[in-house]
């Protein structure tokens, strides 16, 4: 007979908030991998990119399993310190970053589009700014641990809010670079083949999408930590 224990079943061993951090771990791993691969790709080093794309896909799948596990073990009766609806939306946006990362990696892998020399630095800069946005978002989400530890102390709330503002700022900056790159691509349109132009525009858009979803994550996070 397996032994079961009174009282302890009320507080769960596996917390949904822990699952959220685990999922974030996959986001971190995946995005930094993609970033390094992307920089090489821009410089024309295509030979290892296929492996990067496969790795990104693998991590995306692992994150999906974590996401599914969190959702499957969150019945209506669970009382959480944050609003459960916001929590689930936050998770969804976190996962959307990975979906876009996978799409981007596969697009890059399917067709090795040469990046024109005059755009290389801008592409790298843009990717790094998106990366910074995501890193700042990761910090904000990780600060949830301290928030819960302290029972939502005002100091930790302020800390999280500061991080959220920083994500908004960085996302906006990335948008500006995206605008400049897009403008340059249109200016170069006579020198580009239509297919190359199409792909360049698409790459810029999809890199930027990841920052947009990072912004959505912190928006839901802001709702979660509301008093």
């Amino acid at each position: 007979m397996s032994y079961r224990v009174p009282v302890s079943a009320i507080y769960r061993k596996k917390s949904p908030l822990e699952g959220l951090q685990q999922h974030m771990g996959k986001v971190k791993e995946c995005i930094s991998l993609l970033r390094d691969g992307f920089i090489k790709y821009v410089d024309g080093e295509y030979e290892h990119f296929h492996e990067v794309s496969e790795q990104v896909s693998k991590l995306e799948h692992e994150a999906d399993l974590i996401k599914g596990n969190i959702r499957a073990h969150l019945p209506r009766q669970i009382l959480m310190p944050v609003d459960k609806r916001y929590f689930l939306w936050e998770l969804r946006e976190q996962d959307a970053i990975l979906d876009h990362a996978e799409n981007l990696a596969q697009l890059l892998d399917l067709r090795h589009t040469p990046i024109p020399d005059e755009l290389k630095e801008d592409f790298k800069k843009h990717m790094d700014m998106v990366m910074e946005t995501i890193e700042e978002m990761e910090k904000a989400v990780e600060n949830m641990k301290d928030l819960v530890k302290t029972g939502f102390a005002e100091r930790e709330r302020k800390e999280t809010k500061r991080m959220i503002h920083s994500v908004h700022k960085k996302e906006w900056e990335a948008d500006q670079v995206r605008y400049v790159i897009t403008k340059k691509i249109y200016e170069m349109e006579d020198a580009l083949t239509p297919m190359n132009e199409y792909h360049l525009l698409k790459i810029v858009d999809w890199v930027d999408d990841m920052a947009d979803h990072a912004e959505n994550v912190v928006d839901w996070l802001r709702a979660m930590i509301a008093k």
Partner: protein
Amino acid sequence: MLLIIAIIAGIAGLYMAWNIGANDVANSMSTAVGAKAITLRQALVIASILNFLGAVLVGKHVTDTIKNKIIDVSLMSQHDVTLGFLAALLSASLFVTFSTWRELPVSTTHAIVGGVAGFGLIGGGMEMVHWDTLVQVVASWVLSPFAGAALAFFMFKVIQKLIFDVADPVARAKQLSPLFIGLTIFIILLSIFTKTRVGTELNYTMGEYILISLVMSAAAGLAGYLFFIKTRAHAKKKKYDVVEGLFRRLQVMTSCYVAFSHGANDVANAVGPVAVILAFSWQEVDTVYLLAFGGIGLALGITTWGYKVIRTVGGRITALTNTRGFSVDFAAATVVLVASKMGMPVSTSHAVVGAVIGVGLARGLDAVDLGVIKKIVYSWLLTLPATAFVSILIYRGLIILF
């Protein structure tokens, strides 16, 4: 024939004590083990010794309570009362075993009350049962969880506002440590004075007890402060973990106290009916022997079955850090103290369950499973009817046999 009944009663009493020890040890020791404040082996030794000591040293003279408070035994023949108490004992034991297996923290006191009321109802009719006692039991279903929740909510909010919410939580925790140590010691002392035989034998007034407890807890708080002030935060260790570390020591104290008072209070549920049966079927037995007998049963339950209980809980309890554990323990102990002072038959389990919800509502816990709580509440409502019904069945059977 009567000797056979006496022997069966002894075995049933041991079985009940074993049940109580195995089931309730998780309430007292699991938080401390889970937070790695003490090892599993230490917890077993401490819980066994404290339960035994609590039972023997301050175990209540509850024979009369069990005998007279629930039913009016004068309305039945001695023979029938003897068989009835045996039926009640068996019925309560079986119910506790079942509840433990089903993960339901029920009150062993309520189980016994149900069992005794059951055979009383059949043996002597409606007028035999003291309904006011049963009404109190029903009232305690509502009162103790709500009071536990409110107090734990308040306690956690106090810790949160006074410690976590200031610029330097570690320094503040050290400054306030005398207050929390003092409060803990105060509740422990007051409980021992007012709830156990120590109080009746010293025979002071309530005001004097409060005064004595205040002085002693102030001294303990000061001593604890001198001890804590040396605690330095390791550079690498996060500041919140240092705060939890301070509360860990308080939690060891409350755990020990719960183990001790558990032995003192609940041993009667096993020993009380046995005492009545032995007096009627064989001879009066000195209470101290009976209490020691019950204490051994509790210790046995802890070391044989309780081992697995604590280990399982220890692994599951990560969500309950020391500040939360302390809030829960403190609230439960206080509710039990105040309620029993008011003469209410409350259960530690009920107060603990309420307290966990209270901390959850204060945004202190990652996830509280309200579904499990619904199940637990059903089991509380079921305790009286179920034990009464089974007790009636067993009683009918025993009447045919003997």
